């Protein structure tokens, strides 16, 4: 049973460009959350998707957007990249829909984004 799958694993982009990161949740999970983890820091919540809608959002600008597809997979899009967007982007999935936080999350290995 595959866990959470993220692609690509590494990415280098130029400041001002746009990037799309992808996530396939663990089988049976319907909720996807995205986190940004800067070097030496804890993961910061970006947003959460359930039933193809953004359910909650952290303190991130509108340059960060996302999407969830009918098969529960998800994309994270970042526009107008800044040097400060360089980080490990983690996708996490969970079951339970409306009470997903109670189960804990299953994390992918992340996408390492470097903005130069």
């Amino acid at each position: 049973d595959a866990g959470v799958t993220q692609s690509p694993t590494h990415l280098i982009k130029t400041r001002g460009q746009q990037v799309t990161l992808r996530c396939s949740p663990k089988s049976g999970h319907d909720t996807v959350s995205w986190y940004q983890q800067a070097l030496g820091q804890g993961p910061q919540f970006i947003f959460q998707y359930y039933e193809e809608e953004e359910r909650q959002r952290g303190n991130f600008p509108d340059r960060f957007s996302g999407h969830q597809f009918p098969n529960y997979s998800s994309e994270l899009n970042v526009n107008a990249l800044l040097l400060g967007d360089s980080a490990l982007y983690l996708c996490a999935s969970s079951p339970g829909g409306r009470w997903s936080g109670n189960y804990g999350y299953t994390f992918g290995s992340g996408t390492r984004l470097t903005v130069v």
Partner: protein
Amino acid sequence: AQSVTQLDSQVPVFEEAPVELRCNYSSSVSVYLFWYVQYPNQGLQLLLKYLSGSTLVESINGFEAEFNKSQTSFHLRKPSVHISDTAEYFCAVSDSYSSASKIIFGSGTRLSIRP
């Protein structure tokens, strides 16, 4: 809103010594608490969680954590550590009432084991 404070950014210990990683949380509502572990170049793995019931929870690899509501703490302990326990440990919290609860993480504690 919830928040998590991990009091130590780094904890060095000798192999086979006991260790405690400290975590305090802040919340105006009842919470669920988690400890996650992150090995180098990997994502986070759930180590243990407290949802309700017994305040002492255990993991399969010898770690345990105790929920202390009066002190708003959820410290992680292990009586004897191994080299393989070297990793970053994150304490996390979510509220137990919101229908769309998210998990909030602390800044992490780096556990380094010396032989």
